[in-house]
């Protein structure tokens, strides 16, 4: 039995700092995706919302919030939260409903209205919450963790700040070609080097901003797609939403310490590598089959880690890949042809959905000036804090 589902429609609200409600962005993205699919909202049997924790109660019940904004029509509703991996969980929930025969057409929506500056924990005195504790006790912001990984790469692999800057240069060049991106200006290595240090060794232009944005997908069974005359749709072949295995040996947000390896030896490979591995196994393909990848470049240095974790190269060779231009548009396997978080800024619950929107347009050959020629297969990869894996394989 084929476990494929069809992507009938993809839509996004442009990323930026628009100062409006996340509901507006999500509704706009949903309507764009529905129009792209040639379907009416009334045709949708189920809606899955990726939650946001920054907009009060409506954000915690995003599925219903978007359904209400689109106009109640009785669809089954689901709302999910998994931090940065929320979008992949929403796609995973939609896929499970389709493959189980509970729904033929499912609308997946995620949107956020982000505050300026560092992400901060929710208020109050909450010493039982690791996310509260890391700020209270250490002042450990998200960029602090990204910087720890970057410094570690410099010490272990010999990466340099110039290597990290090349990732920004590459992604900014791609983002300049994407009308949905927030930052659409090419960036030079000199500009990265001249930007302020935020958390040594990372500079402002090494670290992704926080943005407003919304993304949506209309997903269906393969039978439904055929009945609509769509014989060769983009297909989602795998959705990986794995958790880590004990003991975790990489210090991860928002943790203050890793697990101890005294009782149980750690499994080989990182948690991030296991996210992609599960997706490849489910899809029955490997990194050598990829035309492109969209990975979560929260920082420039982290994008290099993803190259290794999704199997584009061996451990420690990520910087070599970007130096050779292998992951740039026109390279062997472009990574973040959309421009990535470097060009978008992070709109948490929308981001993993936006990654799949980009794969969809690329696999359709409809990505305009940033088109990867002849794209046949792509992977998205991402990780949500508190142990959420997120990867989607799409093929044509």
């Amino acid at each position, binding site marked *: 039995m084929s476990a494929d589902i069809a992507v009938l429609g993809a839509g996004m609200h442009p990323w930026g700092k628009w100062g409006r409600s996340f509901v507006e962005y999500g509704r706009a993205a949903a309507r764009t995706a529905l129009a792209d699919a040639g379907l009416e909202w009334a045709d949708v049997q189920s809606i899955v919302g990726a939650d946001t924790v920054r907009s009060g109660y409506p954000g915690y019940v995003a599925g219903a919030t978007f359904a209400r904004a689109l106009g109640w029509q009785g669809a089954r509703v689901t709302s999910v939260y998994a931090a940065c991996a929320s979008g992949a969980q929403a796609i995973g929930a939609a896929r499970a409903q389709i493959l189980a025969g509970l729904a033929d057409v499912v609308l997946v929506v995620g949107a956020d209205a982000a505050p300026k500056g*560092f992400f901060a924990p929710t208020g109050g005195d909450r010493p039982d919450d690791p996310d509260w504790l890391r*700020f*209270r006790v250490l002042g450990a912001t998200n960029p602090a963790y990204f910087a720890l990984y970057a*410094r570690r790469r410099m010490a272990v692999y010999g990466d340099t700040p110039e290597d990290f800057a090349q990732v920004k240069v590459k992604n900014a060049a791609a983002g300049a070609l994407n009308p949905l991106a927030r930052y659409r200006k090419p960036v030079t290595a000199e500009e990265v080097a001249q930007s302020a240090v935020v958390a040594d060794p990372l500079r402002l232009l090494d670290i992704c901003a926080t943005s407003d944005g919304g993304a949506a997908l209309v997903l269906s069974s393969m039978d439904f797609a055929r009945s609509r005359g769509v014989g060769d749709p983009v297909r989602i072949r795998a959705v990986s939403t794995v958790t880590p295995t004990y003991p975790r040996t990489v*210090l991860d947000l928002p943790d*203050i*310490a890793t697990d101890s*390896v*005294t*009782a149980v030896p750690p499994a080989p490979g990182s948690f991030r590598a296991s996210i992609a591995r599960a997706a490849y196994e489910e899809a029955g393909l490997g990194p050598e089959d990829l035309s492109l990848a969209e990975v979560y470049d929260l920082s420039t240095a982290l994008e290099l880690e993803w190259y290794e974790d999704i199997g584009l190269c061996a451990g420690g060779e990520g910087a070599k890949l970007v130096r050779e231009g292998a992951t740039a548009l026109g390279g062997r396997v472009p990574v973040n042809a959309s421009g990535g978080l470097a060009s978008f800024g992070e709109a948490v619950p929308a981001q993993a959905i936006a990654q799949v929107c980009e794969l969809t347009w690329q696999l359709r050959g409809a990505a305009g000036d940033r088109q990867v020629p002849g794209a046949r297969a792509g992977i998205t990869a991402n990780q949500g804090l508190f142990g959420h894996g997120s990867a989607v394989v799409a093929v044509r």
Partner: protein
Amino acid sequence: MGRTRTPVVSGWFTEDGPEGGGFRLLGTRCSACTAVFFPREDAYCRNPRCPGGGLLAEVPLSPRGRVWSYTDGRYRPPAPYASDPDAPWEPYTLVAVELEAEGMVVLGQTAPGVTVAELAVGMEVEVVGGVLNEDADTGTVWTTWQFRPTGGAA
């Protein structure tokens, strides 16, 4: 008003460790599977292969370790990190330290004055007590753990 020294989180460290050992981080160890936890787990063991039935007993962590990585905070972090918004921001240094005996990496700030320029991956550091912030209104001095180089070879 008298000033009282209060740990920023209770039970995570002690000023007098075993055998006159001074300041030590405190974790817990499962008696059934030997897994060590920091921050401490008191309610349950998180090792999925633990046979169960063990007790989680308090255990001091190694006083020394080696730098896994480090960074600093050039901009003021948001609340609940305590800082005086009217005072100029003084960057602090964060260091992730690998404790060999426990097989784990623990994050902490460095002792005052230890900047990233004085650190290197692999360098030996030791844990010491320090002050996170002082609350002028209540007279509370919030204490915490910090790391500083031992001067040993990297």
